[in-house]
């Protein structure tokens, strides 16, 4: 499948997840996307899946404490100044699960885009807004680049006999990581300018023609949005 068609399908999945009213539908969407993500080579798939799972669980755990919803309390806690009485109702849990699954679906769709779509071909296929597409493609590379830089920093410290332990130790790497990332982006921008980026009259490598599968995928994507709006 061409990257353009694959992106259309992923976009439709995100739209369907945003429109879906039933928690079970969201769970199915998230599960399918998780399976697609795990097809990707390498360990980055696990990094994405674990990160998204932690974020979704956080939403699930916090929602009952910040929402006031429903009349079927499962647990009643103390009264906290300003916040009021803490309680957990069945409806709040359900709402938390809904929000968590929606976030998971969104995150997993992005992970599938980052891990499985050929970004070079996507850029080549973009017949308009190429600057925007290139920016998105470069931004997608940020996560693995930061991870590689973080490993380099930790290794460099270990080589000096300084161990990086715990959240505080890792937190200390954040500022140098951002500094390094800014430095890298400036160097890349300079190299791109020297290679003619931004000059008018740009051409591009001819993109492969869309096949029947690509057209079918686009029809399926449109159908998924309709189904999401009406039945999910």
């Amino acid at each position, binding site marked *: 499948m061409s990257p353009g068609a694959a992106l259309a399908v992923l976009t439709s999945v995100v739209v369907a997840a945003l429109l879906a009213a039933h928690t079970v539908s969201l769970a199915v969407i998230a599960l399918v996307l998780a399976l697609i993500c795990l097809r990707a080579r390498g360990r980055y798939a696990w990094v994405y899946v674990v990160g998204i799972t932690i974020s979704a669980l956080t939403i699930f755990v916090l929602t009952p404490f910040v929402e006031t919803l429903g009349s079927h309390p499962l647990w009643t806690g103390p009264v906290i100044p300003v916040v009021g009485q803490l309680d957990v109702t069945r409806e709040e849990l359900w709402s938390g699960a809904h929000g968590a699954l929606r976030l998971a679906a969104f995150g997993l769709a992005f992970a599938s885009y980052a891990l499985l779509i*050929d*970004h*070079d071909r996507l*850029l*080549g296929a973009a017949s308009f807004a190429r600057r925007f597409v*290139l920016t998105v*493609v*470069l931004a997608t*590379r940020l996560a*693995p680049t930061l991870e590689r830089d973080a490993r*380099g*920093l930790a*290794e*460099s*410290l*270990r*080589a*000096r*006999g*300084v161990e990086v332990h715990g959240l505080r130790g890792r937190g*200390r*790497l954040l*500022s*140098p990581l951002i*500094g*390094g990332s800014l*430095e*890298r982006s400036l*160097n*890349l*921008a*300079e*190299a*791109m*300018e*020297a*290679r*003619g*980026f*931004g*000059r008018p*009259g*740009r*051409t*591009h*490598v*001819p993109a492969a023609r869309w096949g029947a599968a690509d057209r079918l995928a686009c029809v399926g994507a449109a159908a998924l949005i309709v189904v999401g709006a009406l039945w999910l």
Partner: protein
Amino acid sequence: MALAKLESVSYSYPDADVPALDCVSLDIDPGEIVLVLGSSGSGKSTLLRALGGLVPHFHGGTFAGRVDVCGLDTRRCRPAELAGLTAFVFQDPDEQVVLNRVDRDVAFGLENIGVPAREIMPRALRALAAVGADELALRRTTELSGGELQRLCLAAALALAPRLLLLDEPTSQLDPAAAEDLLDLAVGLGRERGTAVVVSEHRPARALERADRVLFIERGRVIIDADVDHAEAWLRANRPEYVLPPPDADDLPSCAEVVCRLSRVTYAYGDRLAVRRRDLELRRGEIVALLGPNGSGKTTLAKLAAGLLEPQAGRVERRGRASLLLQDAGRHVVCDRVQDEVALSVGGDGTRARSALALVGLADKIKRHPRDLSSGERERLALAAVLVSDPDLLVLDEPTKGADPPRKRELATLLRTEAERRATLVVTHDVDFARAVADRCVDLTAARETAYV
């Protein structure tokens, strides 16, 4: 008629106290191979950037004078508009790759300059073949080694068929044979197509053999601009470290206890075997140089010796503390002040940090932010950060990368002075430096060992 012309060019980077280029005037003719020499921070890279239009357009700052390239005034044309007439290979290949696949990255520049769509890929593939990297065409750029990335960057530059090729230390990550190949290639293609090549190099010997003309820059000024014979004579008289090999290492007292012993060690990254059944013994008081081509397992062996990796087979015995200076360690700074960065290795001991900084000539920079230092100063900072803990085993991975000849001599002297305190292992591509600093060399190409004393 000159292909490029600089007329009284002066340039200062924003917030800089001294100019990076100071009243530079010169002409570059078509097909000319110009070697630019000078110490770190002397203005070599800035000169190349001025020729590519990146100075002042990209960096800002104060610019005076005029640079014409192929009849275009670089102050009126943006660097992107000069692309194709000029092509640039920067020092760090890792930071100039834009796309994920090798052939598409080479095609990126061709697309930007508007090469007809059907010609783009054939031209990209021809450029890759010209640098001997055609087998890399379908590889992911993130999987390439430093040497492979440098070939890719050269291919991307050559694909543009420029009239002026600007190479800023293009061989910094290559072993001697690969570096010679790459220079031969750039120079050969330059001569074949009439392309002028301006190359800045810290390992001048091989570039001197190929150049037509030499510029020596100091504090932004061109001190000498002459043909190779005259320039060599001038260098021999005034800057001998650029042309004469450094003196061989002096005898050291006989070696004593073994600080580190690697016995039949093996290590693989996934299914790629990096080190296979290697033996190595490092004694207190000796300096051992580890040589070998790109990909021969030097860095892996260094990491095994320092304890950063555990062998998958074989055994490593180590006595005392080991410290390793990684490649590009200057990039990995954590603290906001130079002194704190060094003190981090010794639990915040500022006194020891200041002594170590004085040892590497950075005593006056202790309050600066590490990212405000030049790249050469950052490498010295990284060296201070490993020396400060006074390790029993010191492992240095490519410590001369990007270092000018005087700096290499200083480093060799420092390591020799400190040698008795510890065992030292130096991984390097620089054979002259190895000869100057090491008691013996281990060449991983043929697992050959040479004693220098």
